[in-house]
C-alpha cells in the first residue's frame, strides 16, 4: 500500500470516528435533557417562599416535587404558564399528586406576585436570592423544569418551555417506572 493511501485511510478512519460520536451523542434540547444530577439525590434546597414561608426540599420526601425555574419577564416562561396551570390542577386532584414550586430566578417578589395575580397559579413561589438553587441544579437559562421523586432523587430535567401534555406524560412514565 502506498504511503499516501495509508494517510488517506487513516484520515478517513478519524473522520468516521468523529461522525459516529456526533451521531450517537444526545442533544441537550427538548424533553429529558442531560444532567449529572439525574438519578442522584437532589441538591439541598433551603429557602423561603415570597410569602416568607420556610421551605426545605428534604422535608418534601414522600411527595413528587416539580421545580419550575421562572422569571416574570422571560417570554418562554410566560408561554408555558397555561400548561403548568393545567398540570398543577390535575396533580392537585390526585392523592399522590406532585407538588409544584416556582423557583424565582433573578426577579423581584413584587413582579412575581403581580404575574401570578394576573395569570393565576396558587403554588408556592420560592426565593433564590443569589442564584444558589439555580447553580446547585446547573440552571443557566430559564425556564427549566425538574422532577424529583418521593425518595429525593432527581428524575427529569426539561430545558425550555413545557408544552401541553408533556409534563403529564413524563409524570405518568416516571410513576410507572417507580411501580406506582
Amino acid at each position, binding site marked *: 500500500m502506498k504511503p499516501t493511501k495509508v494517510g488517506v485511510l487513516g484520515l478517513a478512519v478519524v473522520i468516521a470516528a468523529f461522525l459516529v460520536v456526533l451521531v450517537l451523542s444526545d442533544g441537550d434540547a427538548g424533553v429529558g435533557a442531560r444532567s449529572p444530577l439525574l438519578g*442522584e439525590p437532589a441538591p439541598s434546597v433551603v429557602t423561603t417562599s415570597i410569602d416568607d414561608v420556610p421551605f426545605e426540599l428534604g422535608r418534601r420526601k414522600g411527595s413528587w416535587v416539580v421545580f419550575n425555574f421562572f422569571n416574570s419577564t422571560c417570554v418562554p416562561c410566560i408561554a408555558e404558564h397555561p400548561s403548568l396551570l393545567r398540570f398543577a390542577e390535575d396533580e392537585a386532584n390526585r392523592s399522590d*399528586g406532585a407538588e409544584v414550586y416556582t423557583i424565582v430566578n433573578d426577579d423581584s417578589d413584587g413582579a412575581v406576585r403581580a404575574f401570578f395575580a394576573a395569570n393565576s397559579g396558587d403554588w408556592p413561589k420560592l426565593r433564590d436570592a*443569589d*442564584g444558589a438553587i439555580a*447553580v446547585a441544579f446547573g440552571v443557566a*437559562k430559564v425556564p427549566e423544569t425538574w422532577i424529583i421523586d418521593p425518595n*429525593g432523587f432527581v428524575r427529569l430535567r426539561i430545558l425550555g418551555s413545557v408544552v401541553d401534555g408533556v409534563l403529564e406524560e413524563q409524570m405518568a412514565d416516571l410513576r410507572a417506572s417507580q411501580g406506582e
Partner: protein
Amino acid sequence: MTKRRLMWALIILLSIGMLAFGSLRDSGPLTQQDRIDVITKRIACPTCDGESVFVSRAPSAQSIRAEVARQVGDGVRTDDEIVAYIAERFGGEVLLLPRATGLDALVWILPAMVTVVLVAALWLAFRRWRQPVVVATSKRSLLVSFAIVCVVGLGGGVLVARQAGQRLPLQTATGGIEDSTASLLAQARLAGPTNVTAAIELYGRVLETDPDNVEAVTYRAWLIMLSARQFDESLRNQAFFSTITALGRAIELDPTYPDAMCFLGIVVYRDGGDAKSAKEFVDRCLERDPPAEVRGLVETLAGELNAELGE
C-alpha cells in the same frame, strides 16, 4: 572546554534558572477575594460566548460568582473542588481549561499527535531529498514507521493532557456526586420499602456523622417499629418504647417536621392502643402539611380514630 569555563557556564545557568523560578513562581492568592477571582477565571459563563465568569455580567455568571464566594467563605472546599462542583452542575463545557480525560482530552492529544506526525513526515522528506537513490523503503517498514510515529504522538499527547489538563478532585469516571449525608438519606429511602435492615443501617450511618439529623432519627425509629411487629411481645414493647423516645426527640429537634408527628400518631394507636393521644398527634401532623406518602397513611388513620372516638 576548560574547567574554568565550565564553572562559569554552570553559574550562569544556575542564575538564569533561579531568576526564572523567582519570577514565574505563583505565590497563591492572598485574600478570599483573590481566591474567588482565581476560581472564577477558570470557569466560563454558561450563557455567553468566550467570557469567563470573572468578567461576565450575565445573571448566570453572577449566580456562579456568588456560589463560589459562598464556598470560599465556608472554607471547606479547595479551589479545584469548587471548580469541580460547578462543572458537575453545568457540564464540562464551563471549564475554560479542558479536562485531561474523556473526549476533552482530544484537545490536548490531537495537536501533540499531529506535531509528531508532521515532524516525522518532514524528516522523511528531507531524507529523501538528500539521498534520492537510497530510498527503497518497503511497504512493511513504512507501515511500522507510521505505527511507531502514531504511538509516540499518542503517548506524547497523553503526557501533555496529564500535565496541562484540568484535574478535578470530586469527579469520578462517571461524573458521580460525592457520597454525602444527602446521598445516604436518599439511598436509605430507596431501600426502605424493600430492604428495611439496609435502610436502618444507612440511617444509622447518617446518625454517626450527624446525630441530630431529624429525618434519620425519625425514619430509623419508624422502620425499627415496623420490623419489630413480626416478633414476640417483649421485643415489640422494647421497640415501642425506643421508637416513642426517638420520635419525641425528633419532634424536640424540629417541631415543624411533620413526619415525626405523623409516625408518633400511628405508633401510639397501632402499637400502644391510645386513640385519644394518637388523634392529637395526627391532627398536629396534618396541620404541618406532610408529604403525599405520609399524608396517605395518616388520613386513613384519622378516619379510623374519628370513628372510634365518635367524632
